[in-house]
């Protein structure tokens, strides 16, 4: 694996965001899996620009403890005292590259919260991070990540379990809906061509990246960028089918062989993202989103917007599959390609449409995920690839509606795992474990047809 903080070059107006994540024992500390987990709804009172970066201190969701103090020593020797607010945030605008030293004042930690000792048993209260000026076409401040692990023994008593469940359920449905956008497409491709496309995850990343490039590099308004992204992604689907998949199908290339071609494509795309955009997380929108609270559930307006769009699009796709000519043709091809061809359906055309639709949906999913989950990174897709496969398999291989249900189940399961007491690091693992267990009991998935399994 490539160390994300060592690779990559930040372009355009983004400077450094030094994220200092104070994570409780139960939540994941680290860069990679933080994607879908901890950092979601933070207020950004500091906007990165070519002149400055942001030093962000954040407590994970669920530990909204105000008043934890820490001392920041800047490279020029100044010291700044920072304090977390009610939401567990603190953001400091910084302007100079160099070494920052952050020291937590342990006496300000509330009862039940303590710094987690490292593997050697030392409690480290001081950490340093270097923000360096990178050479390149454009100088920029490279971020450095700093992690403190905090033990929060009884923080869960702070919020009643029922409220946590409600919040997790809402987040789960949100994640599930966004996963569904991508997995329905994956399922349609599988259904019509039998191909398990490993590069579908990169199509999701592509969505987020395209939106990012449009909004942040070229200043396209977000909504327009989102629409354009969907179109661009759909076009990649058309192009792929035209250049790669259709010729391979016509040559009678085997499915395993094609699957490995998708693995190659996925690898190539991941590193293309790194070459073009860099290896760090980038954000499509850097403005702060307002939050809406309904009872115990708090979601950002962006989240609500994304969920609304997802529901709308999924309904339209569902309706189209059931009611339109093309939809029926698609289902006919999924059912039995030879028969569909014999009854006058242009199978190639249907499959091409499926590719366009699937990649467009994946692109949309990517934009929404980037919006809701605090940015997109070259391996964002890779992170959710298995969740997509799990959703598709859970629902029954090749059934589009099964994929929808599967995605919702997976989404909720992922978000519920930490609340129900399992280590947060295992939130993806539990989803996969449930998948394996389900396959043993019901190999055809939830909506699959039993007799097709030999």
């Amino acid at each position, binding site marked *: 694996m490539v160390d994300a903080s060592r690779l990559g070059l930040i372009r355009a107006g983004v400077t450094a965001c030094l994220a200092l994540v104070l994570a409780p024992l139960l939540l994941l500390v680290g860069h990679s899996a933080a994607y879908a987990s901890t950092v979601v709804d933070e207020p950004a009172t500091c906007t990165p620009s070519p002149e400055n970066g942001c030093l962000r201190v954040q407590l994970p969701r669920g530990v909204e403890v105000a008043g934890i103090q820490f001392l920041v020593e800047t490279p020029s020797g100044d010291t700044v005292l920072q304090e977390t607010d009610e939401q567990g945030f603190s953001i400091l605008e910084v302007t100079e590259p160099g070494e920052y030293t952050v020291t937590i004042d342990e006496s300000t930690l509330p009862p039940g919260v303590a710094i987690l000792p490292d593997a050697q048993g030392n409690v480290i209260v001081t950490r340093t991070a270097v923000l360096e000026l990178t050479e390149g076409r454009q100088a920029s401040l490279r971020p450095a990540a700093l992690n403190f692990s905090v033990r929060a023994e009884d923080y869960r008593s702070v919020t009643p379990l029922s409220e946590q469940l409600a919040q997790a359920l809402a987040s789960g449905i949100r994640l599930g809906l966004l996963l569904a956008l991508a997995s329905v497409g994956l399922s349609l491709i599988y259904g019509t061509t039998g191909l398990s496309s490993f590069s579908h995850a990169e199509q999701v990343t592509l969505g987020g990246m395209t939106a990012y490039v449009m909004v942040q590099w070229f200043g396209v308004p977000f909504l327009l960028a989102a629409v354009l992204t969907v179109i661009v992604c759909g076009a990649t689907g058309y192009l792929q089918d035209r250049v790669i998949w259709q010729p391979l199908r016509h040559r009678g290339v085997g499915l395993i062989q094609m699957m490995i071609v998708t693995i190659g494509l996925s690898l190539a795309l991941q590193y293309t993202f790194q*070459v073009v955009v860099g290896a760090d997380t980038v954000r499509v929108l850097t403005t702060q989103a307002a939050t809406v609270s309904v009872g115990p559930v708090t979601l950002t307006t962006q989240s609500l917007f994304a969920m609304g769009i997802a529901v709308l699009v999924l309904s339209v796709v569902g309706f189209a599959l059931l009611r339109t000519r093309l939809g029926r043709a698609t289902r006919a091809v999924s059912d039995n390609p030879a028969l569909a061809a014999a009854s006058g359906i242009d199978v190639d055309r249907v499959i091409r449409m499926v590719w366009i639709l699937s990649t467009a949906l994946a692109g949309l999913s990517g934009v929404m995920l980037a919006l809701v989950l605090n940015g997109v990174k070259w391996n964002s897709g890779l992170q959710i690839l298995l969740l997509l496969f799990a959703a598709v398999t859970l629902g029954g291989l090749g059934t589009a509606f099964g994929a929808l249900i599967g995605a919702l189940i997976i989404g909720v399961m992922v978000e519920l795992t930490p609340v129900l007491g399992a280590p947060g690091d*295992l939130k993806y693992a539990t989803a996969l474990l449930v998948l394996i267990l389900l396959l043993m009991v019901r190999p055809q998935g939830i909506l699959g047809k039993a007799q097709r399994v030999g």
Partner: protein
Amino acid sequence: MNEQKPPVHGDEVSPDDLVEDYEIEVDELPEELLEESTKSKTVKTLILTGVGVFVLAAMWFVATNFTGTIPNLCAQVLREALKPQTAAVAIAVIGLNIHFGFTGLLNIGQAGFMLLGAYGFAIALSNGLPIWLAVLIGLACAAVFSLLLGIPTLKLRGDYLAIVTISAAEILRYVGRLSQLGDVTGGSHGLAGSAYRGSFTDLSFFGDGRTAVGPFNYHNTGVDGWWVRAVAWATVAVVLLIVWLLVRSPWGRLLRGVREDEDAIRSLGKNVYMIKMQALLIGGSLGALGGMIYVLPTSVQPDAMGRSLTFFIWTALLLGGAATIFGPVLGAILFFSVRILIRGVTDAVVPDSIMTTQQAAQFSWVVVGVMLMLLVIFRPQGILGNKRELQFNA
């Protein structure tokens, strides 16, 4: 995942059957394409070996007799080819070859087997167990893992094994990263090599000091020296010998039979389930062995043995040629050294203003990805593979 539609049981001739029949007809290639006489095979092998030796010798010569960018690059490529990690991956690829190349099992979680082997080995060593026991523990972990994965899935259609292996490998990685297990696995930081390497370097009879041979200059023992290289490649040789003995036997024939058609083998009274389990077990254990060697010169990093590594293993297998004896080793060596070559060439040719060194490294991965695609499309049998036997689209 990839579903081969099961034959429709029943008399109804469905369109599916017609298609299947049709494919069989297409399968019948003219005789001359099928005949690959042993003579031409030997000639081909000789030519390939000759070219390989020549290229190596030329690079060696350039690397030792000149200085500059190109000789430097040659030396880098040679060093990469001889790296213990290359040998480690080669062993894992040989294991995958047993799974996929010979038996047709779709294991997309070989890195999981490696990780498990590495954990078992390193944790046992850092708790003071003797090294032979540590190796056995690593192998036993992989064996248990194979049984856990195989018992429920090997009776189902092939793609279920694929889903389960890739998922289980990921679960392993997540569990290994778990901060609660920090005392055992080191959490996301992994286990430092110094914690377990001692008893391995103690075995060395190479003595202290450095030895330089051509472009290679390493400590005799050291952390990443001649000793670990010698052990790694000797292991590759032993594994090759064992695999050769196994696959030329009637057991190996049985594996290929299962790859071709399970039902046919079943109808001949063979216990297909057992054969697949044996193959899974042996290939997985080889994966674990590769994992142990992989971590000897470095440290156990759960994230270093994730999906990417699995994909590299697949690429190496297809590059060298599945269902061949030497293909996996050749594939692994080529995979790593060609990437270094691409990186070096890109870095040297493309000016920094267009692509930095870092981007050149990333670009080399892009090329690897594209190479994998082209390879699978245009030469599915790999370098050493037999065209007829190794089209894996049956």
